[in-house]
């Protein structure tokens, strides 16, 4: 057993830190400081900066323009990016459709799409969920009818995050209505500018328009936009859910929120003394810190396992489960520490101490962390069956 990073890995961490400190544009720093809501242009500005540095896609292999980092360095890079408060990049191209195209796409598709995902020239969104197909994704109904050299799409996707800004959508569509559930689904790429695509942004309880209803009315998608085999989309869907799960441990961003909690405790007075002097408050913060450290260890174990080429084991299945609970718990802690200031909602700067004004909206929005990427109930069903081997 060895829990330390090598000197080279530590040096890499330092390099990442100092790069972020110098490269994050000054006008984004105040928002980064308070975990404010970044506008899409701000996210893409940071995307381009990381692209230029070659770090925009830590987990992409060299041949597709990735930095060719090993598992540990990838983790370090991701963790430091999260910790810094810099805009979180859109995952849909970099972490979702990109890796799928690498794995299942043909050469033409790789050439056409991957470079623009990397450079940020094209933004993507994920069209999986439908009004009646959420946890039961395989019951999706969006139709893609064969019309010779193209498909014709009719139906609706929902909860499509950032569809309002996306240039492309990757989606699961039903290409064979007669086949049983999982077997008649294909994985398609659709240009959002195609006639018949309509997007309706939806306000969330976090106070921002984070996701959309996406409607398709006689939308033509060329056959060359099919990724993987016809009717074979379910394999891609499952592969992606695996990728998604490891994304949401969010160790870095929870560590950051923990720092925020400590700061609020330090800056908030009770009986004329900082809250952080109170042993009960300290214990409460320490408890969250223990939960986070335990998650970190599970994360490290998963990384070490991957480094040795082991298939993801039990520890990676719990990353999403516990990671999302911790994300939520950290914000809940912050909100509690804020006292009356927890009431604030989209008020002018200065209404509450600067770093606290996004705690409420983030807390609300992050209730979604236990819903998206396979709800926690679904994760538990999977673990019960596949890991504990319980009878169904």
């Amino acid at each position, binding site marked *: 057993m060895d829990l330390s990073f090598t000197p080279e890995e530590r040096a890499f961490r330092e390099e990442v830190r100092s790069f972020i400190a110098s490269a994050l544009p000054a006008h984004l720093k105040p928002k980064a400081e308070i975990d404010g809501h970044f506008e899409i242009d701000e996210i893409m500005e940071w995307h381009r900066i990381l692209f230029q540095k070659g770090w925009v896609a830590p987990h992409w292999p060299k041949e597709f323009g990735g930095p060719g980092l090993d598992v540990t360095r990838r983790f370090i890079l991701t963790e430091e990016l999260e910790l810094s408060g810099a805009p979180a990049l859109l995952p849909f191209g970099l972490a979702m459709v990109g890796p799928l195209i690498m794995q299942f796409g043909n050469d033409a598709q790789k050439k056409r799409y991957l470079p623009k995902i990397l450079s940020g020239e094209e933004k993507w969104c994920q069209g999986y*969920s439908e009004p*009646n197909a*959420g*946890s*039961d994704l395989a*019951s999706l109904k969006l139709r893609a009818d064969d019309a010779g050299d193209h498909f014709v799409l009719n139906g609706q996707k*929902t*909860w499509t995050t950032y569809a309002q800004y996306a240039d492309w959508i990757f989606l699961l569509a039903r290409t064979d209505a007669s086949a049983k559930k999982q077997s008649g689904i294909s994985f398609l790429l659709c240009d959002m500018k195609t006639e018949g695509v309509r997007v309706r942004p*939806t*306000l*969330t*309880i*976090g*106070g921002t328009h984070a*996701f959309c209803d996406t409607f398709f009315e006689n939308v033509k998608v060329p056959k060359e936009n099919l990724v993987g085999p016809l009717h074979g989309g379910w394999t891609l869907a499952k592969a992606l859910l695996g990728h998604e799960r490891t994304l949401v441990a969010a160790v870095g961003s929870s560590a950051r929120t923990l720092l925020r909690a400590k700061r609020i405790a330090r800056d*908030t*007075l*009770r*009986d*004329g003394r900082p809250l952080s002097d109170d042993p*009960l*408050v300290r214990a409460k913060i320490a408890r969250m810190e223990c939960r986070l450290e335990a998650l970190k260890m599970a994360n490290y174990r998963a990384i070490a396992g991957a480094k040795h080429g082991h298939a993801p084991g039990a520890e990676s299945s719990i990353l999403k489960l516990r990671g999302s609970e911790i994300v939520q718990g950290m914000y809940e802690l912050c*909100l*509690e520490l*804020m*006292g*009356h200031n*927890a*009431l*604030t*909602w*989209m*008020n002018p700067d200065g*209404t509450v101490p600067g770093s606290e004004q996004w705690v*409420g909206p983030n*807390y*609300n*929005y992050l*209730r*979604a962390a*236990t*819903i*998206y990427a396979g*709800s*926690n*109930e679904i994760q*538990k*069903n999977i673990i019960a069956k596949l890991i504990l081997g319980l009878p169904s």
Partner: protein
Amino acid sequence: MQFDLSDDQRLLVDTVTSFVKKESPVERFRRLRDEDSIGWSREVMKKMGDLGWLAIPFREELGGLGGSFVDVALILEQLGAALVPEPYLASIVLGGMALAHAGNAEQHGRYLAPAIEGSKTLALAYAEEDGRYDLARVSTRAEKSAKGYRLSGKKRWVLNGHAADAIVVAARVGGEVADREGIGLFVVDRDAVKIDVVRTMDGHRAAMVTLDGVEVGADQRLGDEGLPVLERVVDGGAAAACAEGLGLMNASLRITRDYISQREQFGLKIGSFQALQHRAVDMFVETELARGTTILAAVRVEDPDPRERQRGVSIAKVHLASGGRFVAQQSVQLHGGIGITDEADIGLYFKRMHVLNALFGDEDHHLARVAATG
């Protein structure tokens, strides 16, 4: 022990429920929230006055009906269940009660009577920047002046402060910032103070109040020592939050049960999955316990012994903090994606619950009081 409602109380609950159904479905709150308005309707407040609801907790000689806090709790529970935005809590339970306890006949006639009618409303300004939930931590000063007093200081998160006709303000006439003695209560016209309207998470408005040397007459001071009254009134606020919170919990449970009873995934109603059934049962347990603790708070808040009062109210508020939060969070969770949208009503209940938890003392504050009175 007797937990049955009287015939009058049952009638009251029925009237409030049917009034709310007719006059204030959730869409009305939503509309007022999104419009450029004060966030509630003076007309509806007047109707509540005409129905006598605003008079309930006040003694008959003040123009009240001499009802109990349990009656108030019954009303607030129903108002909470439908997210009725009118400032019953701020104007009656806080501002009104402060006037009733500390004011004299002249002050009652001038300020309380119109609030009981529903033609005017009141607010209570007590919270300060570094005060957290300590009511004695008052740095706003009331200095003697030729006319009476000159008030200077800042009050935060004054519920209904943006729309009230008059605001009861806690200010220090003597002593140091955290002293229990030397706090006075003053009733001040809203027009005399500077108001910054702020939004709260639940879609309501409130006010940050700046008193910049506001001159008030000696006849605007309510009684003598203010802290005992303030403590009693804010305990009333906490008991009221528990009652409203119970309404939120009940409604959230009902909405969620209905939703999981009709939503299908995997070819089944999701409410048929045992994992969700157990969750719904846990929500039900918390809600039923909240009914008991809410009664405890509503009865004890009128106890003449401050220790009994504080203990009963705090036990209830602690339960609201944990049980209410659990119900609010799980309601959203069981809705799936739709629970994250602003369009679904469940999110409105979720947000209101968090506001109630942050008001009148949070979980830690009340845990400390339970520990101190045990």
